[in-house]
């Protein structure tokens, strides 16, 4: 076991302490905190009888659309309904849908980035966006409108608060994924440990 190993409550402990069962638990839930772990993928398939093909197929078709819609909400948020928070929730819901349909076996919903990292990166972006105006002698959290010339599209107006929203967007996705891990995969793991069918 590497010294960097941590259990979900955040404390690294010796394996005999944290795993009360006799056989070692090899599900990714135990090692979610290790980087580059596919935490939604337990490596075994659901019982075929319990699959809901219709929902699975529909959710796979909808998944990219919902993600694109969430980015639309993120960009439009400054002038219309939307913004980083709601966009993050919508994107998170896309993952929730994949999870509901495919359980933790759905390879399309495999995340190789740790949810806490997503949260941390989002929060970092937001705080840095808040602090940046200080460098230009403006008050903290002040916004400015930049005009960017993009080939083919012409002039695009970008409000700097968009960067704050991007941070919030990542933060919220991270939170939803972490909830899925703790309340979804975690409960499945407990059920498996109790010998109940999933």
């Amino acid at each position: 076991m590497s010294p960097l190993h941590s259990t979900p409550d955040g404390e690294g402990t010796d394996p005999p302490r944290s795993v009360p069962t006799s056989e070692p638990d090899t599900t990714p839930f135990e090692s979610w905190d290790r980087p580059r772990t596919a935490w939604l993928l337990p490596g075994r398939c659901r019982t075929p009888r319990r699959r809901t093909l219709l929902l699975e197929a529909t959710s796979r078709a909808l998944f990219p659309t919902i993600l694109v819609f969430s980015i639309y909400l993120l960009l439009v948020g400054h002038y219309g309904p939307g913004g980083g928070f709601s966009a993050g929730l919508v994107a998170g819901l896309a993952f929730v849908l994949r999870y509901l349909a495919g359980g933790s076996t759905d390879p399309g919903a495999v995340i190789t980035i740790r949810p806490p990292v997503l949260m941390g990166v989002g929060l970092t972006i937001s705080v840095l966006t808040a602090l940046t105006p200080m460098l230009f002698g403006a008050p903290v959290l002040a916004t400015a409108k930049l005009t960017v010339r993009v080939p083919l599209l012409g002039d695009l107006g970008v409000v700097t608060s968009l960067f704050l929203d991007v941070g919030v967007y990542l933060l919220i996705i991270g939170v939803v994924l972490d909830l899925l891990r703790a309340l979804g995969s975690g409960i499945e793991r407990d059920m498996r440990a109790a010998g109940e069918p999933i």
Partner: protein
Amino acid sequence: MSDVMTSLPTLPVLLPILGAALSVVLGTSVAAQRVVALVTLGTVAAVAGVLLVTADRSGPVVTALGGWAPPVGIALVADRLSALLLLVSTLVALAVLVYAISQRIADYGRGVASSTFYPMYLVLSAGVSLAYLSGDLFTLFVSFEIMLTASYVLITRRTTTRTIRAGMTYVTVSLLSSLLFLTAVGMVYAATATVNLADLSVRVQTLSPGLRTVLALMFVVVFGIKAAMVPLHFWLPDSYPNAPAPVTALFAGLLTKVSFYAMLRTQTLVFPHDRPWTLMLWFAVATMIIGALGAVAQNDINRLLAFLLVSHIGFMLFGLGVSDARGLSGATLYAAHHITVLATLFLVSGLIVRRTGTVALDRMGGLLKTSPALAVLFAIPAMTLAGLPPTAGFVAKLQLLQAGADAGVGPTAVAAVVILASFLTLYALVRVWVRVFWGLPAPTVEDPDPDDELGVGTARTPWPMYAATAGLVVVSLAIAAFAGPLSVVTGRAGEDLVARDGYRVAVLGSPR
């Protein structure tokens, strides 16, 4: 003032949040997490020092977030009172962090990262800073939520059945008081159409006296619960002692004092009292006496300290009840001293428990022989808390007593209670001294539950844990040594609180 200076009050809030975000990203590298946490809190302490000097020299430093001028925009205000308490709180948080890091290395090993401890510690610091600096009621509510949410995580981490029960009491009571807080903010907004404190202090004058009293009492109850004012203190002795020593020290030092600060701010700026405030004086008497008597009856060292914490909240309430500049100045000085000394005592108690393996006073003994350093570290803050000269506690208490004696018959009578409560405090602490440090050395008690964070690692205590505790003792001694200049600053802070115009002009641009 330069642009950078006006933006300075945002740093004590934003830097810890940035630090928390970075330490989540660096979740696998514990060395980086430690550096980030220490550097962040060190920087915040420096910023708080600059803010205190600036606020004392040239008046409150006000930041209008995003350039939106108050009362429409959110204002962060650092005046003498908030900058002083911010500085003391950050120094305490820094010392407790050093203690916690050293304890974690000793108990879990050098390489063990945590995805919750450091981020939550920094988020809690951010909440505390925001509470001191916020210039409007709603931001104050948000800051309490930031602070409390982080504290829920810190108090229920690595839980056992016993600690989760204690944690549930804490979470339930805190949620209830937050709900009341939000209701009170809503009522204030409905009545006055503003939540900006400076604006509010002008607009509440148009309300009927009855409505004003109801609103004022709502805030007394809300902050009374959070500050553990008797009879709303019941949750504190049950919850704080069940957390690990550094967490208890952090909570005992900071959280109740932040609530007292919020009470002080609202009750002086928005709902001021011209004469001594009889109701608050009664609360002060009850808090001092019931807290001290509760402490005398305890056998668990942490519960004893928790009751003393409650008792000494009463001393600050007394200063608030006197309601003149000197009373408020005394309360401010007392709060600054109390933050340091309570955190120190809980850290010392943590060191004692590491040696003895138990919190029960009747199972300890003879530590004076086996660990004289610990005896010194306990004796100095104990004398400070009891208020023996020449410690900081004596200086602060003397100010309160003088203010009380000059303010009329009622406050003078309460001043007598202050002396009585000080004697009870001394008695309770002497009991600890006799039981723990005198007598025959008792055998170390085995840790009944090695999995929880309480009483872990009874064998080794690394020197940085002693050093951090000693550092806090030095801060406390420095408060006594520099009592002269410090009481000049708190005296001006007390006059600011009574005059109110300086705060209004700084935030709104005119006293109106």
